[in-house]
């Protein structure tokens, strides 16, 4: 019989989210190749947030922390206006595939924690690949985490109620921070929030191969991101677990993890595997796999039923961990 090309079997997108893709696709193409990095740096740059902060009564102060190589990393410390007591602290790594985005990308959702739970949010302008491969992005993040503990009084946050959080590439960085803080006897963490995290440089899971050319962040985009970060070391035994936390062989002694991921995205399998590995090691993880969800749909389509449910579940967990 004739050879019809069989489409790859994959879980469907939710109807509201499929509609959202008609808009999202115009600024975030499914397949990002290295020649699109400049396009993405323009397209994914965060819009000005002054009005948003004003409306939410949040004060933003910029500061710098020093990375091991002497680079001065810009951080923004966001706190509720008129609150002078020490507050729970969140160190946040933004999304953007390790190659684009800035410390205010996707920040709206995290600002809920400042306005609703009175958290102090430290969001970090970590250096981006490929100009700055591993370990620079990770080192910049760790320097910020270290400062959150050592300068806790100055920044007005409680050293005993620290959380690391990140989305996508930032979720991978946050997982790396939790590993490093454990290994280096660093700041004590109360939790790690890993939103659809980018954990595995090997790009070989089944879900990775289910989403070519559709949705947000497909297999090719992921290979572009990891190659930017790791160069020719990608996929080899040389890769550090701080760069790709799926490489970690010891997941014991970690702070409680909140992990969420879409059923219809490439990171589904590695997120599930990471939660599973934490449980195997006797750790605490809460895993949500959202049916019909494409990558980062809560950022791009927060108004949808799936987006709202993701945000509600995450905020509920964060409230349990850090709220007074």
């Amino acid at each position, binding site marked *: 019989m004739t050879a019809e090309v069989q489409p790859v079997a994959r879980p469907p997108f939710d109807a*509201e989210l499929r509609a959202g893709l008609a808009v*999202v*696709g*115009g600024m975030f*193409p499914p397949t990002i190749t290295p020649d699109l990095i400049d*396009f993405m740096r323009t397209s994914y740059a965060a819009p000005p947030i002054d009005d948003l902060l004003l409306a939410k009564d949040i004060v933003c102060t910029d500061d710098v922390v020093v990375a091991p190589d002497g680079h001065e990393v810009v951080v923004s410390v966001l706190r509720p206006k008129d609150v002078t007591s020490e507050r729970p602290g969140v160190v946040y790594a933004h999304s953007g595939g390790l190659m684009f985005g800035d410390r205010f990308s996707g920040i709206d959702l995290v600002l809920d924690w400042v306005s609703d739970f009175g958290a102090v949010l430290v969001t970090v302008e970590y250096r981006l690949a490929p100009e700055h491969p591993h370990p620079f992005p990770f080192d910049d993040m760790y320097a910020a985490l270290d400062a959150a503990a050592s300068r806790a009084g100055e920044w007005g946050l409680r050293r005993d109620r620290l959380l690391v959080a990140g989305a996508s590439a930032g979720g991978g960085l946050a997982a790396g921070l939790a590993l490093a803080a454990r290994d280096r006897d660093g700041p004590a963490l109360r939790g790690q929030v890993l939103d659809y995290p980018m954990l595995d440089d090997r790009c070989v899971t089944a879900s990775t191969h289910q989403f*070519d050319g559709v949705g947000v962040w497909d297999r090719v985009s992921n290979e572009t991101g990891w190659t930017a970060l790791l160069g020719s070391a990608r996929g080899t035994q040389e890769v550090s677990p701080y760069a790709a936390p799926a490489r970690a062989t010891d997941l014991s002694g970690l702070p409680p993890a909140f992990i969420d991921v879409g059923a219809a995205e490439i990171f589904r399998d590695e997120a599930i595997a990471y939660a599973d590995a934490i449980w195997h090691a006797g750790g605490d993880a809460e895993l949500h796999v959202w049916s019909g969800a494409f990558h980062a749909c809560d950022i791009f389509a*927060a108004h949808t039923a799936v*987006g709202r449910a993701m945000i509600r579940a995450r905020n509920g967990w964060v409230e349990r961990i850090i709220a007074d």
Partner: protein
Amino acid sequence: MQELLGRIARLDPSASLGLRVIACFDELMVGNVNTRALLAAAASLAGCVAGFRSEVSGRTVRIDPRGHHADGVLPDVLPDFRQDASDGLTVWLERYGERQPNDAIVLERLALAIRIRHGRGRRSDHRRDLSLLLDREVDVQARCVSAITLGLRPGSRYRVVCAPLFAVWPEHPQGPEDVVPTRFGAIHALVLPDGDHAVSAAPSGVGVATEVEDLHHSFRTALVALRLCDPPAVGSVLADDFGGLIGLLADAPDGSFQPDVALIDTVMTHAWGAETLAAVVRSHSLRQAARAAGVHHSTMQSRLETVTATLGFDPFDGYGRTRLGTAYLVWRLRHSRVLDLPAPTTAP
């Protein structure tokens, strides 16, 4: 999503945001989502509260741009931002400043989607003029009425241009356009006067020129042309380049039994298969095919022997040329990835 639309407009000032709004609501209607989801999409696209009122049930729903129920009592809605969806069904946007560029299209699409969700009118009655014009199942009189509504003149010749929503349009020619559902998904269709058919959009297909009552044929040939694109090398394909052959391809049923195409599949399992067949269909001799493929003629000869043995006919002899050419095009259509291809490659 209002903010995302703003980003798209900044990246490409010529981008048609209205088409994206239409495509968004088309998906919501196909997905048969509920009233709240429709209002949430409208609110998110407009960046203000969207509302709905049913006089029959006495139910009012107001949703904010983050998809939550809006606080407070219903304020007075300005008449410009209110639309009757059907008898006793009203939708609105709670906008109190200047009209924003997409407000009208968001409100219009919301009203249509609400009407359908609430069972007022069958979907087929609410297709837009371009969809009707391009559907040969629709009565020819109805198609001509749609053409006139769209500003097309019976007796004049036009071409349909097809492109995916993610196509890049360095220049955007003016003509009736819309998002038309096809079995390949939502397709952006644009009608241009004949003679105006150099289109810079990539990927895109330009159909053959016809009078208005045959524009459904132009549309189907444009869709075939689009699926023959191979960006970035071939960004736009003219149906005219394939003459009457493209009409046959457009009208061939999907998945029809094509033994020659199965044989092409076998040829394509060779690493050299694709470049060799691409050269052969464009050449009149072995030597010219070798030049086109950039290989020595003895290499081409040995490949051609394999091809001839596989196909069971000589591709340079008699009907062999026609058989190969036709099967090669069907093979390319069946393996076309152009509609999966992603978005913009333009530098900002």
